[in-house]
């Protein structure tokens, strides 16, 4: 500090990095909130320390992972994969029209408003909650999981697809329309080529997301490896739990690797 003021000849000694009181106040509020929320949630240091002991024991029982029931494991994983693939396919097929209806530059306001409401409802609930409702409606098993993930896919893909359609250039649409094309032709030759690569991007992303969630919907009985995982937890088979977790993580990483390549192919 002394150096800079000497160099400026003592004219202006403004601190280049003034303290920002609003920012400090903000940090103080965050701190107060953390203390308050921790007390209401019964989060305390003692419990944390006590838990660490259990944590050590718990981790000890998780190694070595026990792959002896690999048949059950493989069956569950396969069902999760199938749920993810079918749900993504159906979700993508449904998202195309719904997303299109929600685009404000393509449709009259009342239609796009309704489509947006459908998307908002699909997006608000976690797939596991939706899965509970479908388990009640269509019974235990993969079908409930598929339907739950279709809802989640529509919420995500249709929203982004609508945004992508709203950003397109209307010049090409007008050119196609000027040539006397029908409504379907306008969409196929004027709109879709502009949004298709982004659509494939969202779709592969949603496939990854569905794969993650399809390993979870089993917790509420909607098929897939989640049911096996939850059962193993409840029976305290922690070595089998760690085997399942390792397999799930491996499958998810493999899925991300493949979908990353797929995105590059269609860029």
């Amino acid at each position, binding site marked *: 500090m002394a150096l800079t003021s000497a160099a400026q000849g003592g004219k202006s000694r403004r601190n280049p990095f003034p303290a920002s009181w609003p920012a400090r106040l903000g940090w103080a509020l965050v701190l107060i909130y953390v203390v308050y929320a921790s007390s209401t949630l019964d989060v305390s240091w003692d419990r944390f320390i006590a838990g660490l002991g259990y944590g050590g024991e718990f981790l000890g029982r998780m190694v070595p992972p026990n792959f002896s029931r690999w048949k059950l494991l493989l069956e569950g994983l396969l069902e999760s*994969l199938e749920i993810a*693939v079918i749900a993504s396919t159906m979700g993508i097929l449904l998202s195309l029209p719904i997303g299109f209806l929600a685009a404000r530059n393509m449709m009259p306001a009342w239609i796009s408003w309704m489509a947006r409401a459908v998307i908002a409802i699909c997006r*608000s609930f976690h797939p596991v909650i939706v899965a509970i409702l479908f388990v*009640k409606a269509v019974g235990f098993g993969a079908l409930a999981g598929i339907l739950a993930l279709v809802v989640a896919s529509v919420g995500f893909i249709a929203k982004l697809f609508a945004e992508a359609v709203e950003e397109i250039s209307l010049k090409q649409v007008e050119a196609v329309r000027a040539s006397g094309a029908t409504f379907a032709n306008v969409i196929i030759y004027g709109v879709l080529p502009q949004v298709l690569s982004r659509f494939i991007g969202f779709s592969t992303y949603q496939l990854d997301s569905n794969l993650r969630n399809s390993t*979870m919907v089993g917790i509420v009985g909607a098929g897939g490896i989640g049911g096996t*995982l939850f059962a193993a937890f409840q029976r305290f088979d922690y070595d089998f739990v760690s085997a399942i977790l390792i397999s799930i993580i491996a499958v998810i990483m493999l899925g991300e690797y493949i979908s990353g390549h797929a995105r590059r192919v269609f860029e």
Partner: protein
Amino acid sequence: MTPEEAVHRHFQRFTPRQRLARWTAMLVTVAAIVTSLRHVEIIPEFLYDAPEQLLDLLNRLWPPDLEYYPLEVHDALLETLHIATLGTVLALFLALPVGLLAARNFTRNAALNWLAKLILVSSRSVNSLVWALLFVAVFGPGAMAGTLAIAFRSIGFVGKLFAEAVEETQVGPIEALHATGAPGFSVLVKGYWPQVKPAFWSIALFRWDINVRESAVLGLVGAGGIGFALDAALNLFYWDRVATVLLSIFAVVIVAELVVTQIRKRII
């Protein structure tokens, strides 16, 4: 190439290799869909029955039992919001150092980069429900397990995006600070932080929005919040109470999204 050949040249948008890759990708996709459809176990009777059952479910859900809201839902809803917020704050603090370690321009040590990336990937690969199951087993049922689950799931997300933001910073201000002889911490606070601040708050808001949704289900595995009330109502088949819980989750999620959009418009 003679002019004759140039006229008759056949143009194609993609190289043969690109076309092969595209066709393979499509073929694999179709094969995956067909195999899944043939192999998956769906009981057809359940499928035919589905519309009727869905109507029955809606009949049971409507009208919602609004008197149940002040009894149990309100407190649980507040707990959910606290879990989401506290979990996000904890995740931000934990993710900052990991993100800095993962940024290749800030930490010039391949082994540390790799270690940080490993932490981020493992945090992201485990679903928040699984994190919740693990923490319930360790700390017992309750909001503490939920908060830690939200935090641990968010570290990977926040850390990854934060590391990317740090890697995109311009070197100019940082070199200038180094040239004045500023110590490492000052370079971090005055050189990097102002450049990544907007990205950081945007990531934090985005994650908080996601966490509000995610914390609503943690109660299903015993990790506190509104999911607990939902689970209780479901197990007793009080569908009108289930409807109340679902409506309140819906309202909170919509409000959270509106709050996030407004803050983002004003600040960033």
